């Protein structure tokens, strides 16, 4: 392998190397510094005269005298069964003091697109034990359901609670968690690690940590390493893998940084025009493949800058993912945990995983009815602020009270409270709905009311 010493220009994370032999697009590059240390990078643009290399670490110490070797292949990742229980850096190197990973396979980290024809439709209900997810925004295996949060909200606790409690009722299949942190603080990382150790979850987890002070560019590959590992565990070893990616906002910032260094024409708010395609390359790696045992389910977490759901990061994410769980500052201020606002939240695959044979026949209609009633009650709060409670009709007052009850009993639950779907969540929903007159339950058919409504159940 030939070493070039023809770096002409270094700008931010980019190296411009001249007069090379033909170099492949997206090839892995090793850069040797004067002190012998080696940094890694990837080819972003290749032509006869010039090759542009994006370095995954800081460019500190790289100079025109540094050596550049092109490895002739795309970035590959060594994967193996032993990875379970290990903690790796954002670049895939062990940082838990343990031995190097003995590879059983080396996989391309970009990951090819799953042929839609080879996909199998997600249908297995995952019980997270959180009512606002199970009851009203159900997660199913193979789904990508992000958590839209903001600075200062307990999204990490929610993610951990999901990781701890998630199960498919009645199933005993192999289950693993792949956790990728991008640009989170050491403190946050510690909280995650302690929780993994406390609950013994680390044994069946692979952890990738790119911390706030690690190179930003490394964040570009961290989620790809995590997903390559997840795909290996799922499709080669037949496990059901839950991938948690946090925080995608930091990932997008890194993407913007590279775009700027390449002097690309920026899109909205300075993010590159290809951010949709790039994010899709990550999120679309969730799914189930026909004829393979395992599955990849994704819960990406992102913090909305300025609590703005129309910001390009949550916006593009929402267009790719199958719904979103929105964490609300207002509920958090009221002291409600988990502060999930069900109104803007959505699970697009919910209907595939609920109902007879999955959860319970009344699930969809109970959920719709609660949504409608809570939305109505919530609207009335604005009115009450102006005209006072006394000006409301009796019907309106009932809906107003429903909204409060819904938040206090359905949304609020303990950080270790694991509710079952039937008795824990749906029956609780019926209890709350029974505070409304039966004829107001216009979204539920008579048959189900007579079967599940507490008034009839009691008889």
């Amino acid at each position, binding site marked *: 392998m030939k070493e070039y010493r023809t770096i002409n220009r270094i700008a931010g994370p980019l190296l411009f190397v001249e007069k090379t032999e*033909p*170099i492949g*697009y*997206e090839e892995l590059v090793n850069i040797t510094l004067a002190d012998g240390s080696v940094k890694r990078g990837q080819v*972003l*643009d*290749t*032509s*006869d005269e010039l090759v542009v290399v994006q370095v995954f670490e800081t460019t500190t110490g790289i100079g025109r005298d540094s050596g550049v070797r092109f490895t002739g*292949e795309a970035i590959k990742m060594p994967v193996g069964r032993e990875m379970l229980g290990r903690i790796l850096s954002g670049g895939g190197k062990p940082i838990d003091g343990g031995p190097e990973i003995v590879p059983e396979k080396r996989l391309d980290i*970009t990951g*090819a*697109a*799953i*042929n*839609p*024809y*080879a*996909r199998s*439709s997600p249908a297995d209900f995952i019980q997270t034990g959180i009512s606002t997810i199970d009851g009203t925004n159900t997660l199913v295996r*193979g*789904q990508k359901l992000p958590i839209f949060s903001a600075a200062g909200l307990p999204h990490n606790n929610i993610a951990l609670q999901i990781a701890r409690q998630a199960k498919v009722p009645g199933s005993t299949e192999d289950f693993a968690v792949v956790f990728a942190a991008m640009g989170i603080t050491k403190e946050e990382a510690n909280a995650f690690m302690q929780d993994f150790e406390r609950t013994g979850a680390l044994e069946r987890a692979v952890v990738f940590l790119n911390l706030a002070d690690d190179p930003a560019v490394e964040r570009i590959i961290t989620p790809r390493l995590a997903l390559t590992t997840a795909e290996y565990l799922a*499709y080669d070893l037949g496990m059901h893998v839950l991938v948690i990616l946090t925080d995608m906002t930091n990932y997008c910032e890194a993407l913007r940084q590279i775009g700027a260094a390449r002097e690309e*024409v*920026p*899109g*909205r708010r300075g993010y590159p*025009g290809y951010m*949709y*395609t790039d994010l*899709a390359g990550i999120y*679309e*790696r969730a*799914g189930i*493949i026909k*004829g*393979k045992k395992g599955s990849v389910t994704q819960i990406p977490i992102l913090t909305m800058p300025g609590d703005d759901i*129309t910001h*390009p990061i949550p*916006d593009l994410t*929402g267009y790719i993912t*199958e719904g979103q769980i929105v964490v609300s500052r207002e509920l958090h201020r009221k002291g409600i945990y988990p502060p999930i606002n069900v*109104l*803007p939240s*959505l699970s*697009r*695959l919910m209907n595939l995983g609920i109902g007879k044979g999955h959860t319970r026949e009344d699930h969809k209609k109970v959920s719709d009815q609660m*949504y*409608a009633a809570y*939305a*109505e009650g919530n609207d009335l709060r604005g*009115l009450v602020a*102006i*005209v006072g409670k006394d*000006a409301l*009709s009796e019907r*309106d007052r009932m809906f107003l009270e429903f909204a409060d009850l819904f938040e206090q009993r359905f949304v609020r639950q303990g950080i270790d409270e694991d509710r079952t779907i039937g008795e824990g969540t749906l029956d609780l929903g019926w209890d709350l709905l029974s505070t409304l007159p039966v*004829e107001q339950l*216009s979204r539920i*058919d008579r048959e189900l009311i007579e079967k599940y409504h507490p008034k009839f159940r009691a008889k």
Partner: protein
Amino acid sequence: MEVNEEQKTTAGVLKRIAGPVVTAVGLNAHMYDVVKVGNEELMGEVIKVDGDANIIQVYENTTGLRPGEPVSNTGLSLAVELGPGLLTSIYDGIQRPLEVLVEKMGSFIERGVSAPGIPRDKKWEFKALAKVGDDVSPGAILGEVQETNIVHRIMVPPNMKGGRIATITSGSFTVEETICTLEDGTEFQMMHRWPVRVPRPVMEKKNPTIPLITGQRILDGLFPIAKGGTAAIPGPFGSGKTVTQQQLAKWSDAEIVVYIGCGERGNEMTEVLTEFPELEDPKSGKPLMERTILIANTSNMPVAAREASVYTGITIAEYFRDMGYDVSLMADSTSRWAEAMREISSRLEEMPGEEGYPAYLAARLSEFYERAGLVTTLAGASGSVSVIGAVSPPGGDFSEPVTQNTLRIVKVFWALDAKLSQRRHFPAINWLNSYSLYLDTLGPWYDTEVSPEWNPLRSWAMEVLQKEAELQEIVQLVGSDALPETEQITIEVARLIREVFLQQNAYDAVDTFCEMKKQYDMMKAIRSYADQSYAAQAAGVSPTQIISIKAKNDLPQIKFVKDYEPMLDGILKAMESEFTTLRSSA
């Protein structure tokens, strides 16, 4: 423009690779020629000629390509294969059957694999309709093949000359075997190719007069689209664009449906794939899949193929239109298509227009929608392509370029509203912002086919909804008790229109499709409640009593019942007797 088959294959060399856009030199290429790139012969298309250099967009992943690898020009434009075998297919953006790709390369989309758009080995039973000695012109029907339950008509390709038929044979043929020869020696096969960026010719474009019935109450009832018309569904994420598009693909009374999943979710395409074969066409009773062609280019598949997918879809739609069919085409989502243009444009370092989109965005969008229409085909039959495009405006902001440029062209606007979907009002189409410019031209159809009372009834419902919006503003300030009595009734009537008529459950076996007659009966029932309420109020009954009429609370239940008439009659009778009691006690 003709597909130029004679041009020689010329050899070129790759010079630069940066993402999906590459540069080659030494090709004697024309714009939009299809080229084979690199040792693996990846498929690409010339999108810019700059001196000796050709800029090429590659339809497959370019990782690992090196400068110096060969590039060859096929001399052909990007074209689709048209002939028996199209129906029930699922293609990627450049008409490679995904099913065949799974067989050839497994569960993941690898690259450098080509696959013919329609099967070559399958034999079809061709029945000649034209006779020896007939003079046939381009577009004329030569014969037919029973493909699924759809009859596939074989035509003289519009880009070839006609003449007098020398031989024509019925029998079992593959798509490449000659079925007909002309006296001048021209041979016709059942398959021909057509360049996707060129609209197929027609005799005449006509003004649409018949609605595309979709079984969705808010669409058929309030904002209808005509057969051959254009509609846009813009909405923020989670407002139900895809569900609405899928409902249209399932239930619209078109004979052929082309569904383009352009840059959308893989799991959603899978859902369509598993669901459609199980659903029955309400008219024929056959699986819906038999009349459907799917094009799936998910968001993580190559961006250049996403750009092409929309053209692939509309060309296939035009082909079936030319056979005399009513075709509806759903594109979900045109914003992803526009973004693909933006991405490629920015790789070309073109001067960006608004929000980074290329300056030719408006032109491309209007060219696309203009390929819709009700036409007289070259063979003199009537056919149509209706185009329904989803738009995904960033942040739900309708002032962005894709939405605005689309609205300038389309005639129907179904505005999705996140507020409605949050309270689970589905379909979440905002009745105040939406419009249809076909109301006048379609009016006579509703008069004769539904009832002369329908058009006034529709206007009445729109008035009530409009009035409600005004009243709600007052209610927000002073509470509903402060409203005059008649207006309290109006609010209640509007609530019924919203909850009974507009809300429709796509997941309920019965409510998912609502025929026009039922829509009319439902609206008439609401009107009847309204009329009796105002009469009772005038006779001195208090609004509280009118609003608490019990029978009307059962109205939503008829949505879920197939043979609803007896139930509806019962509700109307009960309602009447309640009103009589109220009036007599007043």
